[in-house]
């Protein structure tokens, strides 16, 4: 009973922080669930993947409504992300927990690195004659038209993102979004919306595998998912996206600590 509320509170905090910082909750959830509540990593992954589906559906509905999602491109790339998630999910239920801790630690290090931010590519965006579409910026009203470049490379990155998502129960946006923006030529907003859109069905693919193996446990997954959903909603109401550099730095330190925790578990005797 108490634990249920504590897990709910953790989900609430993670959902709120995630929506303010623009990162998915999975990278925070899994270290917290394993570290604070002693939940084994596969059940933590199961709880996380459920939350990921929930937040992707909630945000996806909003993005589609605002016209930011490139639905057709998403459906093409989903072939790669779901195939990756299938392979990742199958691997995750087979390998030892140590391997999962190790890979998770390494992915966390990459997330810290990627949070330094990259110069998003917005200048040279134009129609290419391949899957061209356009959207209107909800704030400025400006219309951006863009097309897709390097689709095969995007498929490769999507497979990798799906693979990591299936293996570790995180969304995988941290892999896809930079590639979609820098290589495929999507504007940042469209890249985020489209990546988020794909995450739902990607996570569903591996969630099915986790469910069948009993790693989606109601006692952890239900309070987590409800907490994250509510936290994300509160986060958007309270703060929207926070640009504070200080918050980001604190956050990077926290993630580094988490990465260290995961790596220690991977190599602990």
């Amino acid at each position: 009973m108490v634990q249920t509320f504590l897990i709910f509170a953790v989900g609430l905090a993670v959902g709120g922080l995630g929506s303010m910082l623009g990162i998915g909750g999975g990278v925070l959830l899994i270290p917290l669930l394993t570290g604070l509540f002693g939940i084994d990593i596969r059940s933590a992954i199961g709880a996380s993947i459920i939350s990921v589906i929930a937040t992707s559906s909630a945000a996806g509905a909003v993005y589609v409504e605002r016209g930011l999602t490139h639905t057709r491109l998403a459906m093409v790339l989903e072939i790669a992300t779901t195939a990756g998630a299938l392979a990742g999910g199958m691997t995750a239920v087979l390998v030892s927990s140590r391997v999962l801790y190790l890979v998770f630690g390494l992915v966390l290090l990459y997330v810290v690195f990627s949070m330094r931010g990259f110069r998003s590519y917005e200048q040279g965006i134009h129609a290419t004659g391949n899957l061209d579409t356009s959207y209107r910026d909800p704030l400025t009203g400006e219309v951006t038209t863009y097309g897709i470049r390097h689709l095969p490379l995007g498929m490769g990155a999507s497979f990798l993102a799906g693979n990591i998502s299936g293996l570790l129960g995180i969304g995988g946006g941290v892999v896809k979004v930079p590639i979609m923006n820098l290589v495929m030529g999507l504007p940042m907003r469209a890249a985020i919306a489209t990546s988020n859109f794909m995450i739902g069905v990607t996570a569903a693919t591996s969630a099915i595998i986790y469910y069948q193996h009993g790693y989606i446990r109601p006692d952890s997954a239900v309070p987590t998912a409800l907490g994250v959903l509510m936290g994300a909603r509160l986060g958007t109401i309270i703060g929207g996206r926070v640009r504070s550099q200080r918050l980001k730095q604190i956050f990077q330190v926290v993630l580094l600590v988490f990465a260290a925790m995961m790596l220690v578990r991977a190599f602990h005797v």
Partner: protein
Amino acid sequence: MNWDEQKTPVANGDPDPATPSAGQVDGGAVQPDSAGRASTPEAEHPVPVVRERAAGPESRTGKQIHVSVDLHDLIMGMPITPEDVERFRRRHMLGRMIHALLTWGLAASTTTMLAGLVLELATGHRIPDHVPQFREALRGVLSLDGSAFLAIGFLLLIATPILRVIGAFLVFLYEHDWRYAAVTFAVLAILFVSIMFGKG
């Protein structure tokens, strides 16, 4: 007929007479011709040209917001043809269907999970650490068993994005858009493998 934008043939190389001025209005941000859009011969004739962004996509309420993406494709000073209207109507359908499925799927699953949580806590049970199989869960719902509600809630949540893919597949079939029907079918095939062979 395929309504996909990148497949729309460019009817002729001549730029639409209405286009340059429209481009200036938009600060040159959009070049309808490079977007692969057909410039129609009818453009030579005086046809009604919508110059304003009349749809009011800024409004976040009401149905208008749904049309924003497609409508600004249409209103860059280009004459609106019946084909445009048809294309707009159909793309509109896909987006609306996706929005409805995601919203209702999420609402149904969270409601079911909450009901399960309340039932379990009200009957003094601990929240279970495993979910019943699907058939047991269906039977359990009838006897107001909390853990059955939790399982159904999970399954609804997992099904939500899958239903979205099935819905898109059906829309593409209806539109005779075979390429995208095949794309969504491939995703469904991978999901099927996950369902059938996920057990190991």
